[in-house]
C-alpha cells in the first residue's frame, strides 16, 4: 500500500467513521435529500448522471476519497461542478462520499 492511500485512510476514511457519528440523523436525512434533489439536478436524481457524471459505487470505486471530498468542497474549475464549501462542512462532504461509495438506496 502506498503512502497516499495510507494517508487517505488516516485522514479521510478513519475520521469519516467518527464524523459520521457526529452528524445528527436529521442532518443525514437533509444531506441525502440535498444529494437526490439538488446534486441530482446535475447528476440525476438516481445519480446515474446528467450534466455531471454518474455518482455510483462502480464509477467512484477507483477514485481516492480525498479527491472526491475535495471535488465536493472546492468544485472543479472550468467545469459545471460548483464548490459546496459554505453550504457543506468537511465532515458532511466526507459523509456524503462514504454514502456515495456505499451506494444510496432508492427512495421509491
Amino acid at each position, binding site marked *: 500500500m502506498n503512502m497516499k492511500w495510507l494517508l487517505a485512510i488516516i485522514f479521510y476514511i478513519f475520521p469519516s467513521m467518527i464524523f459520521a457519528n457526529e452528524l445528527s440523523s436529521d442532518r443525514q436525512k437533509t444531506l441525502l435529500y440535498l444529494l437526490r434533489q439538488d446534486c441530482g439536478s446535475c447528476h440525476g*436524481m438516481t445519480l*446515474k448522471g446528467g450534466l455531471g457524471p454518474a455518482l455510483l459505487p462502480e464509477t467512484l470505486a477507483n477514485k481516492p476519497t480525498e479527491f472526491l471530498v475535495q471535488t465536493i468542497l472546492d468544485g472543479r474549475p472550468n467545469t459545471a461542478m460548483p464548490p459546496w464549501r459554505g*453550504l457543506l462542512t468537511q465532515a458532511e462532504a466526507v459523509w456524503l462520499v462514504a454514502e456515495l461509495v456505499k451506494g444510496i438506496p432508492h427512495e421509491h
Partner: protein
Amino acid sequence: MSTNLLFTSDLKQFLLNTVIFLSLSFFPLFNQATELRGTGDLGVVVERATGSILIVDTTTRTRLSKVEGFGDLSHASVVFSRDQRYAYVFGRDGGLTKVDILLGTIVNRVIQAGNSIGGAISQDGQLIAVSNYTPGGVKLFAADSLELLADLPTNSKVVGLVDAPGQRLVFSLFDTGEIWVADVHNPRQPEIKKFTNVGKQPYDALIFPNGRYYLAGLFGEKGFALLNLWQLEAGVKRILPDYGKGEETLPVYKMPHLEGCGITDDHLLVPAVGQHTVLVIDRHTWQQVKSIPVHGQPVFVMARPDGRQVWVNFALPDNDTVQVIDTTDFSIIKTLTPGKAVLHLEFTPRGEAVWVSVRDEDRLVVYNTETFESIATLPADKPSGIFFTARAHKIGQ
C-alpha cells in the same frame, strides 16, 4: 276491453316517459367522467421524485388526474401535440413518453437513450426530437407512433433544442461549443448546418417567439451566442462578452434556463450566470442596457405573455423567493416567498395567473399577477416543471 287496453297503453307510456325523464336528468351525474371537453386550459405538472405527472385544469385550478410510470424525471420537459390532446414527456433516464391528457393514460413509451435533457416538436407537429447527454445527440421520432426516424450523434451533450420555422430544429453542443441547425423536411435524412466556435459551454438557449433569433447562453465564458435564423450566412454573433465585469462570479448550484425568457417589445431579460443579476439586452442593438440586481442567482426569468412583467426564481440557497420586475422601468415591484425550493413558473395563456411549483413543500401555488395574491394551492409530490397546453401553438416550445 277497449278501455282496459287504453289504460294499459297509457300506463306503459307513462312508465316509459318516467324512465326517459329520470335517465335524462341523471345522465350528466352518472356520466361526468366522460363529458366532452377541450384541452386548451389543461396542463401537465412534473412530479420529479415519484416519476409521475399531474394533469391540471387552469380554469378551475384543480388536479384532474395523476399518471405514473415515467422513470427518472429529475430533469424533465414536456411538449404538446398541436391538437393539444397529447403530451410528450422527456425524462432524465432517456424515456420519451406520450400521454393522452384527456384520458390520463400513457399511450406509448420508449427508452431512447441513456440520459436525456429535453425535446421539441416540429413545426408541422409530425416529429418529436429528443436531445441527449449520453450518448450525446439528437433523435427524431414520428409523433404518432414514436418510431425512430433518425439519429444524429454529436459527440457532445446537447442542450437548448428548439423547433424553428422552415421545419428546422436548432440545438447547441455543450462540450464542443457548437450550434447546429437541422432541416428535417426529410426526417430520415436531416440536412445539418453546423456553426463552430460559438463560445465555451453553451448551457441552454431560447428562440424568439417569431422564430427569428436563437440565443445560446454560455457557461464556460461570459456572454451569449446569437444566430439569426433568417440569415444563416451571417453566422453566429457573440454578444455581452464581458457582462458583470469586475463582479465576483459565485458558485452556480443550479444552471439557469433561457427557455421562456423575458422578451418585451424592445428588450430581452436574461439571467446572468453566477451573479445576482438579471441582464437587460436591447433587442435591436444587442447591447446590454442595464443590469437589475435581484435577490439571488436567477434560474428562470419568465415574461408574462403581455411582456409587462417578468417573474424570476432563484438558485440554492435563495430558492424560496420569486421576484417580479416591471418591464416599463425595470424596477422590482414585488418579492414573494412561495416556500422552499421554487423550481418553475408557468403563466396561464393570457397571463392573468401564474402557477409556481414549490418542491420542498409539496405544493403548487397559483398567484393573481395583478394583485400578487395567492388564489389557489394544490398538493403535488415534489413538483418541478409546469407546462400548459397553450405551448402547443408557440414556436420553440
